[in-house]
């Protein structure tokens, strides 16, 4: 059913408007970062780089960045291990409760952040665990596991099991097959899942507000700036955050676009 010319034009216009809707607010953030004036009135008055200097030399911002990276790396590490194990179990085996497991694993992204945050907060309190970087990592890992799981699962589904059997037939044992056949196939999916998990952790704020003690991640720091009277310095931090999360996401998209090893076409 080739769409009619009018339909195609209509769809193209709708898409263009949609993209404008998505990107205009981000463009506004960008413009204000170069404003001379402190007030956020429109149009901006004068051009200046002074907010860049102020934001990028703020030791609190740098501390927050370091904390965010630590939390992201910790959560990603947990997610890579658990997500991969789980995706192999769900994809390769049939077992009692398999459906329940695949349902439970998506709960952390399907349930609202306040629920995850509040649940973890209650648990930490109940067991007398002090809120710290560790509790932030636990909170982030809950929803990062799903991201790795989904990526690896999708790759395993696209990959023919027969190449592993061929490896075994040729005399390789379980470890060698994993090392030389399975792992290379899922490698880019692991990298993509890991990058996305890191980006998600890097951006998370709602669960973090329930699981942080004194530690400030970058979003918590931005939230603090926003609750005062925000200056264009916030926009500078915002742009840095956008760029820092855009790079891993871009790389991850590129990585997931190549397919696994399909049966017969390998």
């Amino acid at each position, binding site marked *: *059913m080739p769409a*009619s010319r009018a339909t195609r034009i209509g*769809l193209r216009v*709708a*898409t263009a408007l*949609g*993209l404008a809707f*998505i990107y205009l*607010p*981000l463009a*506004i*953030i960008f413009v204000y970062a170069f404003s001379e004036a402190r007030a956020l*009135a*429109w*149009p901006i008055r004068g051009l200046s780089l002074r907010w860049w200097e102020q934001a990028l030399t703020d030791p609190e911002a740098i501390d927050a960045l370091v904390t965010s990276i630590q939390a992201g790396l910790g959560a990603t590490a947990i997610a890579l291990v*658990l997500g991969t*194990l789980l995706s*192999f*179990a769900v994809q390769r*085996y049939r*077992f009692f409760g398999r459906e329940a*497991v695949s*349902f*439970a694993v*998506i709960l*952390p992204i*399907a*349930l*609202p*952040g*306040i*629920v*995850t945050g*509040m649940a973890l907060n*209650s648990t930490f309190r109940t067991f007398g665990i002090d809120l710290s970087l560790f509790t932030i990592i*636990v909170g982030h890992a809950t929803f990062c*596991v799903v991201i790795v799981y989904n990526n690896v699962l999708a790759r395993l589904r696209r990959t023919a099991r027969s190449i592993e059997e061929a*490896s075994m037939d*040729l005399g*390789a*044992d379980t*470890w*060698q097959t994993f090392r030389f*056949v399975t792992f*290379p196939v899922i490698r880019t999916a692991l990298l993509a899942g890991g990058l*996305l998990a890191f*980006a998600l952790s890097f*951006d998370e*704020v*709602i669960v973090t*507000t329930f699981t942080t003690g004194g530690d400030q991640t970058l*979003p918590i720091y931005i939230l603090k700036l*926003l609750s005062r009277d925000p200056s264009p310095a*916030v926009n500078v931090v*915002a742009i840095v955050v956008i760029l820092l999360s*855009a790079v891993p996401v*871009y790389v991850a*998209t590129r990585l997931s*676009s190549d397919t696994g*090893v399909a049966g017969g076409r390998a």
Partner: protein
Amino acid sequence: MPAYAPDTPPARGDAGRRLASALYRRPRLQLGLLLSAPIAWLVVAYLGSLVILFVNSFWRLDPFTGTVVYEPGLQNFERLASTEVYRTITVRTLGIAAAVTITDALIAFPIAYYMARVASPRTRGWLVVTILMPLWSSYLVKVFAWRIILQDAGPLNAILRPLGLEGPGFTEGEIRLWLCFSYLWLPYMILPIFAGLERIPTSLLEASGDLGARGWATFRRVVLPLAFPAVVAGSIFTFSLTMGDYIAPNQLSSVQFIGNVVQSNVGVAGDLPFAAAFAVVPVVVMLVYLAVARRLGAFDSL
């Protein structure tokens, strides 16, 4: 790219080989080893926490001593049901979540359709990246952007005022939040619908055409039913993310969401059992939502 095993396999101790073949003969043991750590994590860190949240919601706070009384009772839920303010907040939260979901589905569908069935493969790849990037880029930044756009002397009013119009002010919190949330979660709706539309075999559309259906009839009776599970999949995110938010309501309006009440009761002077009870409400709503979504086949589109 498959890598090939080198001609000479690396030397490996007998123990490693024996373990490998022992495992190979025992698939149940393999499964157990694969599952134990993730299941332990899910149960201890996540499902266990949900249970503790649930249990906490039955305790109560002694109003005089400010300490938690560990006697199970339904008083928190009775308070939620009988207090006008909390009923209003619940209805508002769910209402805006529903409005945002419908808005996003309406905006997302033509974009996803264009990406999946009209655009050239090159444009499609470019569009996927273009829409995916802001999905992951900072949530707070986007909320802040809307705060700037909607402020009294902001860009929106700069455009509207010469036309004699006015953007939604601080007192029209619901409209501001509807706008901001529709913006925030739009990519979460576009991508599943795009994936769903892309999966529809072209042969089905051709068959529909061969059987005499015009463009619109094919769309309504073939494309829409096949894409509907994907819309439901996207709606899980738009609905849940809106329902669980408290930061945008704080930043953009003076209205409260369920999350605001929960969050404000977690502090030192807060009423934790009551916060837990109110947090149970979105859990119940989402579990019902997910059960329905699953019946509609949305899980294959996640």
